[in-house]
């Protein structure tokens, strides 16, 4: 898993087919684990049942291939997870507070954030993390330009919008640090020259 094909271009057919089979086998493995967890008991029957159901799911509900060109970095993954929990708690308390605050009508705004790493995996992971975390809700995703359109709750000034944009790009940076390739990492690391045109 850690030495996934680093070639960003179209892979040669044998390698592509091998990669496809490996992805399918990984997916099947996860489905079997889920099946066994659902039954809560490891035995031969559950294993065979899981293999059958997993194969049927993969056969009848095929998904577009997601290329994983990076590698897992446990330290950065842990940092992302800790930060995620902190933001989840603070965002939840914030929304809960303005929900019960009497006579308060929160204002919102819709902002566009263009991500710097235009891969499907990064787009999906960032969208997931962002919409779970800080007072933001995804309402539209533009896959061609990898732009997320977010609704931000409880804005007071234009500075809040810039802050939300910064935070979203920070989430992207932490995700790329955790699972991205070296080339992707270079695109998100803070760079004084880049900062200006990153919207």
């Amino acid at each position, binding site marked *: 898993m850690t030495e996934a094909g680093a070639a960003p271009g179209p892979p040669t057919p044998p390698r592509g087919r091998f990669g496809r089979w490996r992805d399918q086998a990984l997916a099947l493995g996860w489905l079997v684990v*889920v099946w*066994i*967890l*659902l039954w*809560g*008991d490891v035995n031969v029957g559950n294993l065979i049942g899981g293999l059958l159901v997993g194969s049927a799911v993969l056969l009848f509900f095929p*998904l*577009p291939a997601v290329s994983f060109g990076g590698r897992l970095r446990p330290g950065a993954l842990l940092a992302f997870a800790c930060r995620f929990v902190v933001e*989840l*708690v603070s*965002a*939840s*308390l914030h*929304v*809960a507070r*303005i*929900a*019960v605050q009497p006579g308060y*009508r*929160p*204002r*919102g*705004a*819709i*902002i*566009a954030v263009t991500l710097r790493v235009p891969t*499907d995996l990064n787009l999906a992971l960032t*969208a*997931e993390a962002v*919409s*779970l975390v800080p*007072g933001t*809700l*995804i*309402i*539209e*995703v*533009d*896959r*061609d330009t990898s*732009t997320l*359109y977010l*609704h931000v*709750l409880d*804005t007071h000034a*234009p500075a809040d*919008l810039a802050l939300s944009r910064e935070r979203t790009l920070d989430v992207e940076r932490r995700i790329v640090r955790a699972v991205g390739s070296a080339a992707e990492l270079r695109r998100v690391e803070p760079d004084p020259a880049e900062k200006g045109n990153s919207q």
Partner: protein
Amino acid sequence: MIGVVADWLGAACLVAGALLALAAGIGVLRFPDALSRMHAATKPQVLGVLLLLLGIALRLRSPADLGVILLVAVFQLATAPVAAQMIGRAAYRSGRLDRSLLDADELAERPTGGGSGDGHAQPG
């Protein structure tokens, strides 16, 4: 001894999770438009469910139950944003939002023209 501590921690998690779920319910009722309501329905509710699951896990403490609880947590985290996005997008496209409450709308001014564009094929 450990069991008693875990029981009390679990009870605290259950109460905290229930309070967050209550706050989410109040938010859904009180927020002015559909998009704000989706915030209430995703954010405190996700943490509320996670706290409830943590509380249950601390009370039950058997491996089989922990597996199922872990699955529930993972699926909760994976599916809540998808549901919120689908509802938010439907609300936006059908114009069910209060523009007087919006400070900015960068979706309306995107280059492809308006929020009506449906040219974006869904993956799959």
